[in-house]
């Protein structure tokens, strides 16, 4: 069934009017191997978009090209136009450091620095020189932790090590750390796959709240999670973006047979 189907055009509604990030004709290669094939996609401002698809379909690769984390992989090459509010992020003249401050990232495994909770959150503001006085820094730390819904749990032990928190708390700490530099976009690569269901629920909750003024792109292996947290869902298949639609649509009545097959567990 899968074989006869063409997927070189994306069905659904990949393009938007109020896009925060716009990708056009994105190809990503690992050495000679093409991992992403001409993807066109807009990410709406202050929306949550979920990227789903079978293992190895290129979700992470695509996500990581959005803040040039792919730069760290020597053999990785990105083609096409990737724009953040109209600015090409692969412009050779562009400095990745401020880009990454604007487009933050949260990873699969919680990765707090082996420092105190305070220093974890304060790190970003420090390196970017966002707070000149200690009191400003304190404020940034507090508000970031507040936004990450962690303040009440940690306010009495800001100087305890961040690695001493539970997995779910660590992940929220990582989110707080990312928020601290006031990013406009946050990329999340399977942020809950190392967490138990309860911690997962809390992080999902957080995502919903953050999306009020941050654009979020989340890669997830759990279709249910995509269904729960996102407003739009993009389905990738072997490096192709097969379908993008409102999440409701994708989970009740997807347009593309491949999406349907994936959503309903019909691959083999």
């Amino acid at each position, binding site marked *: 069934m899968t074989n006869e189907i063409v997927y070189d055009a994306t069905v659904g509604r990949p393009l938007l009017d109020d896009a925060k990030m716009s990708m056009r004709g994105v190809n990503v290669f690992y050495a000679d191997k093409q991992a992403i094939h001409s993807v066109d996609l807009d990410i709406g401002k202050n929306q949550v978009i979920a990227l789903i698809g079978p293992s190895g379909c290129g979700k992470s690769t695509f996500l990581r090209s959005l803040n040039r984390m792919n730069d*760290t992989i020597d053999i990785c090459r990105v083609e096409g136009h990737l724009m953040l509010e109209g600015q090409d992020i692969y412009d050779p003249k562009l400095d990745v450091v401020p880009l*990454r401050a604007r487009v933050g990232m949260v990873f699969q495994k919680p*990765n707090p620095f082996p420092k105190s909770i305070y220093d974890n959150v304060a790190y*970003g503001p420090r390196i970017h020189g966002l707070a000149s006085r200690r009191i400003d820094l304190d404020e940034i730390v507090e508000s970031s932790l507040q936004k990450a819904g962690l303040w009440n749990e940690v306010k009495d032990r800001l100087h305890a090590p961040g690695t001493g928190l539970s997995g779910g708390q660590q992940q929220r700490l990582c989110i707080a750390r990312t928020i601290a530099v006031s990013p406009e976009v946050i990329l999340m690569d399977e942020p809950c796959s190392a967490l138990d269901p309860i911690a997962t629920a809390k992080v999902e909750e957080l995502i919903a709240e953050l999306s009020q003024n941050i654009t979020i792109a989340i890669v997830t292996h759990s279709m249910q999670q995509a269904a729960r947290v996102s407003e739009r869902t993009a389905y990738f298949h072997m490096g192709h973006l097969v379908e993008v639609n409102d999440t409701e649509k994708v989970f009740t009545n997807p347009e593309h047979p491949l999406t349907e097959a994936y959503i309903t567990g019909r691959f083999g």
Partner: protein
Amino acid sequence: MKTIDLVNKNLAKRYRKEKLFRAYGLASIGFGLLCLVLLFSDIIGKGYKAFVQTNIQIEVNFDAGYLGITDTTNTEQMFAANFEGLVKKSLREMFLIKKRSDKRLAYSLVSTDSGYQLHDLLVANPAWLGTTKKVWLLADDDLDTYYKSVDNLNGAFTGRMQEQQLVWIKNLLDNDALQLQFNMNFFNLGDSTEPELAGIRAALMGSLFTLMVTMVLSFPVGVAAAIYLEEYAPRNRFTDIIEVNINNLAAVPSIIFGLLGAAIFLGFFGMHRSLPLVGGLVLTLMTLPTIIITSRAAIKAVPPSIREAAMSIGASKMQVVLHHVLPLAMPGMLTGAIIGLAQALGETAPLLLIGMVAFIVDIPSGVTDPATALPVQIYLWSDRPERSFAELTSAAIMVLLGVLIVMNALAVLLRKKLERRW
């Protein structure tokens, strides 16, 4: 037959094999530990006596006339005075010697250094001039050997003592004029052909300077190289070569580095032989791969997630390295460095080839003074025929091992202290 019955059938045989295998393992460990104990007890058994020395008590008349000294503060007079003759005279008087042949035997009971000892005593006690004092003088190494073994051997062992000397010694023993005292010379002096005057100070200082050079050069360079290779270098043919290279260098026999030192530093650059500087350079080249490898391992042990985390909030490469990677890797790097240096400290072969195998009496005072190193000293002494030198060698080994143990303990402590497992 049911599966479980088959399983039960073979069970006894399987358990016998299990026991046997375990016994092999335990025996191996036993063997290893036995060797360790043997080695240590052997060295300590041989060497502990070197820390004391036999002294002889002699009655000396500091006759101002004989010595020609009027003022003990006058260095020229003191220098010119015949203290050696005084020692001999005192010996003759003490043993009431007439025969010429006996004189030589008597003289050889005390160290050749005795004249200087008297000189120093007089400098320290000017009031002694003109009086007769009983003073302790260093015994000769043959007497030393004999005296140290006299209890164990019940007189059967004579060493290199002559009949006549044995009589005198008996006499001395009866008068309590033979005594073991702490061997200061061992720690204060440089090498000497006379065992009782040989010390490890020069070698120790030589080792210290060599090690300093090694440390100052190898640690920063090694860490920098490790950072470059782990964090910056692109993965390509060239860095692969560097990597393979370093791993190979770490396993290249140390003597090859000696050859390198001999050919390049001595032959090509024309540096002087026997310098701690050259030794340090050679040992640097030798330890560098080790330090690079342990540093790289320490850097590798820093989870990549930390780097990604820092990078994803906009830290630059250098910030990632300096703020995160380096602090986290530092305990590992330091431990690696100390262990590398400990290795360098015990290294002998390359130093032989660059001439740090000289007979050094003077204590070196800098990296450009000719010097030898402690292990080399051990090697040199182990070749000397005198029995006392075997003792000294063992003692030097004990010192060397002591230093090494301290260094390794330091490494362990450091790791424990710095390694904050958050």
